[in-house]
Every structure is written in C-alpha cells, then in structure tokens.
C-alpha cells in the first residue's frame, strides 16, 4: 500500500519524530511504499543538518537522511514553516540574502501543494505531532 506521513513536531521535542521514523521503518519492512514524508510546523526542525546530539544518543536528522538515501523517500519541508524557523537550502539562502544554508541531505523545500498531493496519491496519510 502507498502511505504518506506528516510530521508536525521537531526532533527531541516529545516523541513524534521518533514515532514517525519507527512507523516508516516498520512500513518499509512490511513492503509498503512511503509516497512522501511531509514536515510542517515545528516538524521542519527535523531537516537542519547542524544538530550534534551526544554520541550515545540517536541522531534523528541523520536517521531521516539515511532512510531517504536507502529507500529513495521523498522528504519535503514546508517552505513557509521553514523560512520562519531559519531552514534554508542553497537557492533560498541566495534569494533571501543569507550567508549560508542548513538543509540536511535528502530533504527538499517545497510548498503545501506537496502535502495535498500526498493526501490524494497515497492510500493513507498518517499524522505525527504535538
């Protein structure tokens, strides 16, 4: 089955980023397709590549990036939510006159249309958040 996931909570906030990761892993292990993971609200904080958690802690951002690379998952970050929170890719950093970007590998910045499309194209949309 084709599944889409929305994440509305940042990493290390409560548990939703971890829950979403575990859900996506379980879905993949059962042979389902993950059509897209859409990051909205504080969920966009999952997409900055600069977090340096303690070595004995899980690295949530890296986990997303690895999952995306291994399973070719589309990780989409809401542009309006991202800009409010200082999440930029190279193009946006240039357009906004900022001195750098911080988007993590495997993520791309786009708009809410991507969420609507996921809702239409996927068989189920599962929301994780605060």
């Amino acid at each position, binding site marked *: 089955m084709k*599944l889409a996931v929305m994440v509305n909570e940042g990493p290390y906030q*409560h548990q*939703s980023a971890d829950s979403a990761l575990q859900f996506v892993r*379980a879905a993949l292990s059962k042979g389902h397709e993950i059509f897209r993971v859409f990051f909205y609200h504080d969920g966009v904080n999952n997409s900055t590549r600069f977090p340096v958690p303690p070595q004995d802690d899980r690295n949530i951002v890296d986990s997303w990036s690895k999952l995306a690379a291994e399973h070719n998952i589309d990780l989409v970050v809401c542009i309006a939510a991202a800009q409010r929170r200082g999440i930029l890719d190279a193009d946006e950093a240039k357009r906004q006159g900022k001195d750098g970007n911080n988007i993590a590998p495997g993520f791309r910045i786009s708009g809410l249309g991507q969420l609507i499309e996921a809702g239409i194209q996927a068989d189920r949309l599962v929301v*994780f958040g605060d």
Partner: protein
Amino acid sequence: MAQLHTVNKSPFERNAFVSCLEHAKEGSGILLFEDGVYAAMNGTAVADKVKAALSGRSLYVLGPDVKARGLSEDNVIDGVKVVDYEGFVDLVTEYDKVQSWL
C-alpha cells in the same frame, strides 16, 4: 467505512482521548501510543470510559511505548490489544482512514 483514530497524548494532560471516544463511531478503532498509552492502563480515572468504549469499538495500545514508560503490558485493561510498530502499520492499512488526535 471504518476509521482508525490515533491518540498520542495522556488523558491527564489533554482531553483529546475523551473527545476521541465521544466521536469514534461503532466499528472504528482507537490506537493509543506515546503518552496516550496511559489511558490503556488499569485503575486510572478514565479506565471505566475505556471499558465502555470496548463494546462496539476496538482499542489498541503500542507495546513499545508502554514499556518505554516503565509500565507493564500485564496492567493493560482486558480487551485492549497490544501491538508493535508493525501492528501499527497493519492497523493503518486495515482501516479505511486514519484520524490523528494531536
């Protein structure tokens, strides 16, 4: 058309679980995970509501989240089914739609 409701907040923190019970139609499923698992335990202030909901609706609780809170699956209310993450995925596919109560 049967719907799966997911609740991830403790019933002692927010009223999402009680609202969910009031909206969930017969034949629907309710999955408790994250802090929502507290609602599935015996002896709490919402236990009677959970037991009443079990007639006509199916309740599930995510086992790993029960254990992560130092709670015992033995103390889950009779009739509430314990599932793992793969079981979570199965529920999402078995029900027609998923409503997340955040």
